[in-house]
């Protein structure tokens, strides 16, 4: 099955992510790009999409450094003394996406600058013997 024969489902998006590909869907009618994937373009009310691979480059739009994390991130080893950054990235292609921001000084978040250029970093986490890939970004 080629990329564009795959249905525009969340599962297929996540499978791309597991294979270290950040994919979006582009409306063939109006050109709007969606990350993560959407099957229906809410602007056109049409389901006329194509898969597009993102360059993985963008800039930091907004972020936080979290000391009291979610159970998933606590499981990953983050805590009050080892905070992590949740961020919103504005991709070079124009859409935004949520991701963990790594390679920054989470304990001194005032050093992290909105607008700084970032690139994708696929983050592998091993949980119960299985490896899972999550979306991350790091400063260029």
């Amino acid at each position: 099955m080629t990329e564009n024969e795959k249905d525009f489902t969340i599962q297929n998006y996540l499978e791309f992510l597991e294979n270290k590909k950040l994919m979006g869907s582009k409306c063939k009618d109006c050109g709007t790009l969606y990350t993560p994937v959407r099957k229906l373009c809410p602007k056109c009310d049409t389901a006329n999409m194509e898969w597009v691979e993102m360059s993985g480059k963008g800039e930091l739009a907004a972020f936080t450094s979290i000391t009291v994390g979610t159970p998933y991130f606590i499981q990953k080893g983050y805590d009050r003394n080892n905070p992590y950054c949740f961020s919103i990235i504005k991709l070079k292609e124009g859409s935004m996406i949520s991701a963990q921001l790594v390679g920054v000084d989470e304990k001194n978040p005032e050093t992290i600058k909105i607008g700084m250029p970032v690139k994708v970093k696929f983050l592998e986490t091993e949980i119960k013997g299985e490896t899972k890939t999550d979306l991350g970004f790091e400063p260029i």
Partner: protein
Amino acid sequence: MTKLARKVALVGAGMSKFGNHFPVKRNPDLWIDAWLNAKESVDNGIEPKDIDACYVGNYSSDLFNHQGHLGPQMANLVGLTPKPAPRFEGACASSGIALRQAIIAIASGIHDVVVVCGVECMTELPTAGVTDVLATASDSLFEYPAGATFPGLYGTLASAHFKKYGTTAEDLMRVGIKNHSNGAENPYAQMQQSIKDMMNSKMKRYEKEGREIPDWSDEFDFLKSSANPIIAYPLRLFDCSLITDGSACLFLASGDKAKKFTDTPIWITGTGQGSAALSLHDRDSLTSFIAAKEASRQAYQMSGLKPKDIQIAEVHDCFTIAEIVAMEDLGFYEQGKAVEAIKNGESKRDGSLPINTSGGLKSKGHPVGASGAAMPVEIFKQMRGVAERNRQVKFDVERALTHNLGGSGGTCVVTIYQK
């Protein structure tokens, strides 16, 4: 947006004491407290036989208490079986939605008198569990795997507001200081203490324990210290609302039925509701809430009022940054200008536009599904001039507004009240 087809009045409003009540009090106990409290506020009395339906707002009894289907349970407790008892969910805007639906039902003529129940019992779970349940109001597919918590999402929005408008951590602290000073005057609030009093009692405790007394000259020193740890940068502990158990109860009646209950009804003249993409990354703005702008646009248009006509407001300060954004979304101030007004004291009890005289979610507490019904309780009291202790505003309140936000702004309900 036309006016309501029939007039709708708020004829009674009350609430339980907000606080950390589990297991002494659970959803049914909290609701009965609110019901009895609200009944006392109805001048000529109200009985179950007067009421056509019970509209319940609750976010997540399913996950907090392993109890779904709360509507009929709450209705039965106050003698309303077999009347209709639907439950409404929209995260922290759940009972704001129940209120709006009750208004619509009365305006349409389907019902004449509806009781609105807002209820939530959160402390049955430990803090980590509560955080996880609240996170389900955000996007669990794409925000949660990136580490989003609720404070985290509002911290993210705050970072964007800081960058765009130069808002600072001190600006956020001013909101918390104000709301706690209001909550100190509210006998129903969870934390009835000003931040200065908390600071002083902490210093006294350190002295008593023989520890080094911190060098805090004012609240800002205290709030910038390790006594107020970062939860989700730039938000610290005292930028976050509380984890709360509580309930609120509102009695609504059609224009002709209202006279039976009181000679001084509070008229509801505007209601609006808006929505937004659940994920922040799917929105055009990270510094305002489109759902709030849309809800307020509808409510203003319906009531014929403008932002400058509003004299007091209860807004959804689930985090201090949210109060700042609400002041801008509601049109009280231009984008980026609310912090200046806060610095000038305009939103204080004695200011030109008092906001959250109840103490807000910050100090009164935030039992998520009950907050939307608790806001009108404060408005009801302020408009009647009966707010307790020292928090009654010093002018006659003729026009007021409530702003109830769901989750990270995916839902917003705005309601306008007039005498």
